[in-house]
C-alpha cells in the first residue's frame, strides 16, 4: 500500500506503533509492515518526516540513547498529549470504521414498485 493511501492515518498508526513499544525508526517501520500483514510497507524515508511532525507537535519525544558499543540511536516515546491523542484517534477510527462498514458491507436488494 502506498504512503498516499495512508494519508490522514499515518500519524495515528505511528502513535499506536510507538505506544506498542517500537522506539526507533527502523523498528517502527518493521512493526508497521509486519503487524499490517505486509500492507503498510512504506519507504522508511517517509516515516521520519511524520515522526518529526509528531515530535514538533508535542505528541512524541525523541531522545538519543546509547546502543551497543559505540552507536547512538534516537528513541521515541509518547508524551501525555500523545497518549491522549491516540485515545481520541482510536475512538474516532472505531466510530468511522463502524459507520463505513455498516454502509459499505451491507447487501441491499432494491425493489421498485409501480
Amino acid at each position, binding site marked *: 500500500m502506498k504512503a498516499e493511501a495512508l494519508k490522514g492515518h499515518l500519524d495515528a498508526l505511528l502513535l499506536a506503533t510507538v505506544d506498542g513499544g517500537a522506539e526507533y525508526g527502523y523498528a517502527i517501520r518493521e512493526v508497521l509492515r509486519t503487524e499490517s500483514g505486509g500492507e503498510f510497507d512504506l*519507504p*522508511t524515508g517517509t516515516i521520519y518526516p511524520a515522526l*518529526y511532525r509528531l515530535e514538533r507537535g508535542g505528541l512524541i519525544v525523541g531522545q538519543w540513547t546509547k546502543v551497543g558499543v559505540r552507536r547512538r540511536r534516537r528513541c521515541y516515546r509518547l508524551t501525555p498529549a500523545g497518549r491522549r491523542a491516540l485515545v481520541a484517534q482510536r475512538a474516532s477510527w472505531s466510530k468511522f470504521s463502524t459507520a463505513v462498514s455498516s454502509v459499505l458491507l451491507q447487501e441491499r436488494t432494491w425493489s421498485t414498485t409501480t
Partner: protein
Amino acid sequence: MVHDHLTRPRGGDPGAGLAELDPPAAAVIDGYLDQLAARLPGYAPIDAKVTAELRDDLQDATLARLPRSPDQATAARVAVAEFGDPAMVAESLRPELASRVVRRLGLTLLATGPLVGACWVLALVLSDAAPPWHLLPVLAAPLLLIGAPAVVLTVVSTGRLARWISPSAAAASGTVATVTAAAGDAVLLGGSALLLLAPVGPPSSLLAVAVAASLGRLAFIGLAAGRLLGAQRGLATLTAAR
C-alpha cells in the same frame, strides 16, 4: 497496551552489539546520504542530527538484511533501495526542515529582540540623552508593534500549535518578523548616524553597545534571509500537501 514482540523488530535489535559497518557498506550509506543532502541545499547546519538518525536507521536495515546477503555492501544497497528514492525522501523531509529553519529564526529573534531593545533603551532613554535622540525609539516603536506579535506567531506556529496553524502563515509571520527586525535596526542605526553627523553629541558611551548589538543582529538577519527564502518554498510544499 505494550507488546514485547513489538519493542524490537522480529529477529531482535540488529544494531545492538555492532559498532560500525565495514568500509564498502559504509560507503554505500554515505553515498546515499550525500545524494539526499545534495537535494536539500540550505539545510546543512541543522541536518546533522537528522543525518545521524537516518544513518543509524540504514545501519540497522543493513544488519537486518545481512543473513540474506553475501556481504555488507550488498545488504547496504538493499537497505538503501528500501529506504526510498533520494528525491522522494528529500521532498518529504523538506517541509519539516523548512519549519525548523523558520522556528530557529523566530527563537533567535525572540531572544535577541529584548536584548537589542534594552541596549537602545539604556543608551537613549535612561541615560538622559539630548531631545533629538529621544525620537529614535519613537520612530522604531511602530515596527515593534508589528514585529513582536509576528515573532511570537512564528515561534508558536512552528511549535506545538503547528497542527492548527497553516505552514504558509508560519512562513509569512517569519518573513514579517525578519523584515521588521531589520527595519527597526536600520531606523535606529541610520538615525544614530544622522544625529552623529549633525552637531549633536552622542547620548552616552552605551550607544556604541547598542550600535554593536543592532549590527550583530543585522548580520544574523542577512545570513538567515537566504535560508528563509528556501524555507518558504519548503513550507509552500507542505501547505499544498494539506
